[in-house]
């Protein structure tokens, strides 16, 4: 009957982000918020584990005040309770700050058998959170997990790495990150959405975590963000018969020094 905590992030939907053509800056004005994609897998995996083995699932997030929109969304997906810390400075927080705040909150909330994160967030995709939390909380980290099975009460984590898979078994609590392929998050039904209102959410004040200003100072700062635009030659051959177009392409490749 594991006691599980899922850490998730409320991010801007990258599909709504536009690039301003004049200066390549990002226009996020139309971007709606969403639970980061792989965090949805993390939530689903936690809920699936508890459906199989019993236990509870709590959720935790650190974000700007906009993250309040995530609370009902998360609760409708299965967790029993959600904790959240809101802070306007979260927008500029780097992975170090986020991990520091989350770890501080976890120490305050209590101990868990399993802490699950997505393998990386859909906005910055740093792929750091689980490992950082593990180091900060002095727990083992099991990252890039593609499957979790229970063998007589012992959890076994299959990890999918660049060139191999391996199975990790942990004695005691662990921090785990999961891959998107681990499951297909179910879409909440109407009753689950309504049921979310009956579940508790608790705000934790950042000031109550006793973190120093130094600890809350980002170590990585964004100096500039520019939309990526492909600027290629765009020399497209569309006139004439196929043989003609092929000859044109071959000539161009030769000019580039390619055969």
């Amino acid at each position: 009957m594991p006691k599980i905590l899922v850490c998730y992030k409320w991010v801007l939907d990258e599909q709504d982000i536009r690039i301003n053509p004049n200066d390549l800056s990002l226009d996020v004005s139309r971007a709606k918020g969403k639970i980061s994609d792989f965090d949805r897998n993390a939530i689903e995996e936690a809920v699936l584990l508890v459906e199989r083995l019993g236990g509870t699932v709590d959720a935790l997030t650190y974000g700007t005040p906009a993250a309040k929109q995530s609370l009902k969304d998360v609760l409708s997906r299965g967790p029993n309770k959600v904790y959240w810390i809101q802070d306007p400075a979260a927008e500029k927080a780097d992975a170090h700050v986020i991990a520091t705040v989350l770890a501080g909150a976890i120490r305050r909330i209590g101990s868990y058998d399993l802490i699950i994160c997505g393998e990386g967030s859909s906005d910055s995709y740093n792929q750091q959170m689980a490992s950082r939390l593990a180091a900060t909380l002095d727990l083992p980290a099991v990252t890039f997990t593609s499957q979790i099975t229970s063998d007589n009460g012992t959890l076994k984590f299959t990890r999918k790495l660049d060139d191999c898979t391996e199975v990790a078994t942990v004695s005691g609590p662990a921090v785990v990150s999961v891959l998107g392929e681990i499951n297909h998050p179910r879409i909440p039904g109407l009753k689950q959405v309504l049921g979310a209102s009956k579940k508790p959410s608790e705000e934790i004040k950042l000031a109550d975590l006793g973190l120093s200003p130094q600890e809350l100072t980002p170590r990585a700062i964004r100096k500039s963000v520019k939309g990526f635009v492909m600027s290629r030659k765009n020399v497209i051959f569309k006139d004439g018969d196929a043989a003609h177009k092929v000859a044109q392409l071959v000539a161009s490749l030769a000019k580039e020094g390619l055969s």
Partner: protein
Amino acid sequence: MPGIFIFSENNAVAMQLLTPGLELKQVMQQPLCVIMAGSEAPEKFIAAGADKVFVLQAEKIWPEGLAVAIADLAASEQANILLVGGSLRGKNVAAQVAGRLKAGLSSDATSVSFADGALVTVRMLYAGLALCEEILTLPAVVTIPPRTFNEPIPSARLGEIKVVQGVAETRMTISDVCPIESEGADISAAQRLVTVGRGFREKSDLALAEDLAKALGAEIACTRGVAEDYHWLPIERYIGISGRKVKPELYLGAGVSGQVQHVVGMRDSKVIAAVNNDEKAPIFEAADYGIVGDIYEVLPLLTAALKN
């Protein structure tokens, strides 16, 4: 000694990281050190430019279990920068080290430089939609994707080799290590690629692309749909945001529409060419050269023309 440190559980990648390491060493005027585990000869790191090599020895060499040992070593040596090979294992190690040192970590940096007293990296945001310049305070950790840099050219050099005892992670046991069946060449190393997309009607039609690849001296790659939906090619051959990233000299897409998720995986290619019968296909915006035409007609003609 305060310096620039390098770690990768893969020695070839560690060698590649000496290249940016040497640049940093030049600018910062600090020694360059390599942390390694395993039994390979540390001397080649010295030959390639390292001033000192720390050989970590532990009871069990499971690379990620050495994260604490690496962090402690970096701390005791007052490392300013730690460059880590950006394999999945490497990213795990790097983030654990950063967590332990309460340091910043820039992931998947495609460039790293030191200017005005700060470390500057460039990396992707929003699934490749944007590029971001990050400034990190020191000490800082950076993960760099394998094959971003080439190995430095070795020379006769002298340096220090020190064996260090490390305590490995004991709370985890690893078992059932199974290599992922990789059917064929590693496309991320190929200099030329012919990439097939859903413009092909049947699996047997891929022979047209294979003939072209032979004529070009290229490897075959594909889009995600061809691998994951059609299963015409193994998933190791698909290029995309969730697949392989490639930067060959020549990328030629045949029957590839050019969706953003695919283009992100190949956009650093030197020359991009495409053949597609839909002139509106997004690939043409991402290409240097293109032919609007039927791949069934164009590919054989192209193959023949290249053979001459």
